[in-house]
């Protein structure tokens, strides 16, 4: 390898890690600032924003978090619940269905395969934001506005995940399939019993990506969800920003509590994530 350490060039290695370390501090600083600010009264923030002088609170008062759970009849907890349900529905369905399609495209040769793959690529290239109007009309027409189904439906098959699973399953040796067939397994049981477990790293990587997207999605739930009791966290938090002043007590503590779960999930699956992305991702 071309490692600096192996060249014994300790100076340059130290410089490199110093530079990287400073950039890491810049990258993580906003999260740190958010956590620190969540222990301060909102009116401090209203006046100066986040300031260096007031970065570390004098006392770690959990008042904001207690209020978060209790104020406005615990509406924050409802938003949290909605986000959790939407994320599990959307990420779960999209993992199953997209892996199914990606695997079908990667493993089988059939008439129309290239056409389907081209369609997947084409869909990847059409930002859904452009289609929000007709999608909105469609959802109203079938009566699933202001419902979980309405938010999740357009995303339960993800072209990006299909592409990813296809790339990944291209590398599955055909012998596996043949071995399964000789043992008398049907094609679907081969997928569920033999090949899906082989794609575990791909599932891990996509699980993180899909959950993150669902948990953080904004524009589409903003359109579909009409009443406060159906808002996910993103829309609920956004509704605290008003022209008449921002409710920073709730906003900051709420932002904090909304971000921590996904960061924890990431740290649990992190190794999966990186190795899965590298194995299935973009090859040179």
């Amino acid at each position, binding site marked *: 390898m*071309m490692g600096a350490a192996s060249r014994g060039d300790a100076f340059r290695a130290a410089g*490199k890690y110093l530079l990287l370390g400073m950039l*890491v501090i810049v990258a993580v600083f906003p999260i740190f600032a958010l956590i620190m600010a969540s222990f301060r009264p909102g009116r401090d923030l209203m006046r100066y*924003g*986040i300031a260096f002088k007031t970065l570390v609170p004098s006392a770690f008062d959990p008042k904001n978090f207690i209020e978060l759970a209790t104020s406005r009849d615990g509406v924050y907890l409802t938003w949290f619940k909605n986000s959790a349900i939407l994320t599990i529905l959307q990420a779960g369905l999209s993992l199953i*269905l997209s892996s199914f399609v990606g695997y079908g495209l990667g493993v089988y040769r059939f008439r129309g395969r290239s056409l389907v793959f081209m369609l997947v690529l084409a869909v990847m290239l*059409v930002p859904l934001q452009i289609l929000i109007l007709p999608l909105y009309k469609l959802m109203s027409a079938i009566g699933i506005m202001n419902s979980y189904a309405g938010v999740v439906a357009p995303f339960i098959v993800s072209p990006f995940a299909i592409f990813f699973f296809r790339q990944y399953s291209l590398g599955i040796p055909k012998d596996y399939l043949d071995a399964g067939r000789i043992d008398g397994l049907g094609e679907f049981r081969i997928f569920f019993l033999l090949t899906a477990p082989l794609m575990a790293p791909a599932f891990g990587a996509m699980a993180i990506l899909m959950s993150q997207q669902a948990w953080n999605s904004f524009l589409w739930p903003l359109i579909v969800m009409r009443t406060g009791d159906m808002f996910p966290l993103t829309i609920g938090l956004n509704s605290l920003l008003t022209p008449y002043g921002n409710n920073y007590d709730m906003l*900051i503590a709420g932002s904090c509590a909304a*971000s921590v779960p996904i960061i924890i999930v990431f740290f649990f699956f992190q190794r999966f994530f990186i190795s899965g992305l590298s194995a299935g991702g973009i090859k*040179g």
Partner: protein
Amino acid sequence: MKTASYFRSYRLVPYVFVLPFLLSFCAFYLYPLIGTTVMSFQKIIPGRTHYIGLENYAKMFSPDFAQALGVSFQYTVYTILLLVPVPVILAVLLNSGLKRLNSVYRAAFFIPSLVSVVVAGTVFRLMFAASGRAVVNSILGLLGAKPVDWILGGAWQAMALMVLVAVWRWTGVNIVYFMSGLQAIPADLYEAAEIDGAGAGRRLVSITLPLLRPTILFVTTISIFGGFSMFEESYIFWQGVSPNNVGLTMVGLIYQKGFQLGDLGIASSIGLVLMLIVFALAIVQLKLFGFFGKEDR
């Protein structure tokens, strides 16, 4: 007979596998696409919708449209200029040296992308507050500059704010893409180059960058889509109403016309034109990417 039926069912199997995509494609892409095309030729008033030919397209090119296109275009250019070279350099640095420390750093760079754009907007709004005591302005103060009103100050401040949020959130993701690209480069190429006496800079220019080209083009392509379909980074700061429209993007304009002003026809025509712009850029990019040629038959 048995083999024949096996054969027949086997031929159907792949279609069952791809069926979910075909269904969702028809329901959520093809149908809306046709719908938006039809609407773009209509004047849509509940109960009295009628065709008006190209009128929406003629009316579409307002000063707002020019402003939104300009903002989206600038935003896309700036994000690409920052979000390709910076992550490439960081990925190269993180790809050599101490493995454990590298993976800790890489994870740290990735954390911002896990945070929702609303949360990012909230923190940035406070860090970039207009007061001279807010974090960013006090750093500028140390450098002798006057406090800047980032959110309401004007066009360049608004653009800087949106681009910085994007850079903060996406650097870590692009690092992961580039690192997976780097790992596909055979190590013996570097060894051979080192034996031939090539220095670090030379190896970067002659080996790393050319072999990283597909990944660079991939990231550039997704940045074009992301850039032109940007809405949220603007919405979180101005809730759709920015002074002199400094934060108005193309998707913001569609949202404004369609959902806030209720003119679905004109919003549809803007959407279609935006899609054509993005598509044209995409085709050019994919040609460069060599995607069409590489698909195995």
